């Protein structure tokens, strides 16, 4: 048994570092940008044409939060090639599985994180907006200099949780032929007929990855909150 473990660990880890981790990191980065833009759009007080943009953003967030991630992956990878439009898209939308994975995971993470960021921005006391306005800051300055830094601290724990979930959810990418860890474990299990061992092994590796992330999360929270939590020196 140890023989099998020793042989498969390098294969699993290599799949992890080659696909699972990049998939998670890239999707999360793009997702965060999408989330920030979505949250700011939805919180904006602008009217006119902006209302259309707001409606689009609301639809996007609703769509990705109300459908299963696995179904989203299938639509993007297996479904879109059949989206044929005469003249414009004669061959449908075809992409590399990794690209399809990145697009779906990014959009999915963006939808969830936009709600997190929106809630965190709303959690910053209204007095902070007023204090910034009172010294003559523009709305954009207020958001960048005063509100987002505070919202970020509030958002850090839930965003870290989203990232940890994303790392685990990348296992769904096995279903669209990406050679990530879970897919590799399935292939090994099919060869050596040791499904219990192989799936347990891959579970341990996921747990290892996410534990490291949890540790980093704790460290980040400590780092970004040190001034806010600084010990009272007087009074």
């Amino acid at each position, binding site marked *: 048994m140890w023989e099998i473990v020793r042989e498969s660990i390098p294969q699993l880890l290599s799949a992890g570092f080659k696909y699972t981790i990049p998939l998670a990191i890239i999707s999360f980065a793009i997702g965060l940008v999408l989330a920030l833009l979505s949250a700011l759009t939805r919180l904006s007080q602008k009217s006119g044409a902006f209302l259309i943009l707001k409606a689009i953003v609301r639809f996007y967030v609703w769509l990705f939060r109300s459908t299963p991630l696995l179904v989203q992956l299938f639509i993007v990878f297996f479904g879109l090639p059949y989206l044929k439009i005469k003249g414009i898209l004669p061959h449908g939308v075809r992409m590399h599985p990794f690209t399809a994975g990145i697009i779906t995971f990014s959009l999915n993470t963006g939808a969830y994180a936009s709600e997190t960021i929106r809630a965190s921005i709303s959690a910053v*006391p209204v*007095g*902070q907006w*007023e*204090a*910034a*306005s*009172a*010294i*003559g*800051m*523009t709305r954009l*300055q207020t958001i960048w*200099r*005063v509100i987002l*830094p*505070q919202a970020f*601290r509030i958002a850090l724990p839930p965003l870290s949780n989203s990232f940890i979930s994303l790392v685990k959810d990348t296992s769904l990418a096995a279903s669209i032929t990406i050679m990530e860890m879970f897919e590799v474990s399935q292939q090994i299990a099919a060869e050596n007929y040791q499904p219990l061992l192989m799936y347990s092994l891959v579970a341990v590796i996921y747990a290892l990855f996410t534990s490291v992330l949890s540790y980093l999360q704790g460290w980040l929270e400590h780092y970004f909150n040190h*001034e*806010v*939590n*600084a*010990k*009272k*020196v*007087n*009074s």
Partner: protein
Amino acid sequence: MKLTNINKSFGDNHVLQDISLDFPEHKTTVMVGPSGSGKSTILRSLNLLGMPDSGHYDFDDFHLDFSQKITNKQKLAVRRSTGMVFQDYNLFPNHTVLGNVIEGPTQVLKQPREQAIATAKDLLNKVGLSGYEKHYPNQLSGGQAQRVAIARALAMHPKYILLDEPTSALDPELEQEVLRVLLQLAHEKQSMVVVTHNMIFAQRVANKIIFVEHGQILYDGDPKEFFSPDNPNERIRKFIASMTMKNL
């Protein structure tokens, strides 16, 4: 600084009822009145944090008509010429004391950092907080935090400073250290509008008193007459008596 025929409603609540007031330059105007009378609403009209429904506002070169749309540019310009000190300080928790004071000068006035820091240090010295530059707001007592807020407002060199119950959140000893700073500013002829429930302080600092009740101005003028036991207005005499009792 002058408000003319100001009206403001929140729903059916007619909070300011056609009030007209002027706030003389280089003087301290104190606004008093029962809770919910509209003092904060008036103060917030002066830096356009709250917009009246109608009326006129003349301040420096600004002549605003609240029944027209006030542009963002006008709002920013008025806010740059007024400083505001809030009851609960509203310091930026993610910035140090120094960071709080230089935020406006560097970001809004685009002053060079060194210049802003030099001014900030002078101001912190003035409010008695030299040496606290690197502290964060949550490391300060309420009285210290409020003095930082005053320094932050002064750093913009505003024409007027607006203070909304600046000591209401403070214990009496801490209140005194803030009031001392305000008395000093009054002495230096800084134009101020102060809302306060502290009648002893009001009597000491005011060049002009405004008494607000139910969104109307019941008194607007000389503090001596206002605080005199012979004030013919019984409502005002009762108000002062009740507030003074509270302060004791």
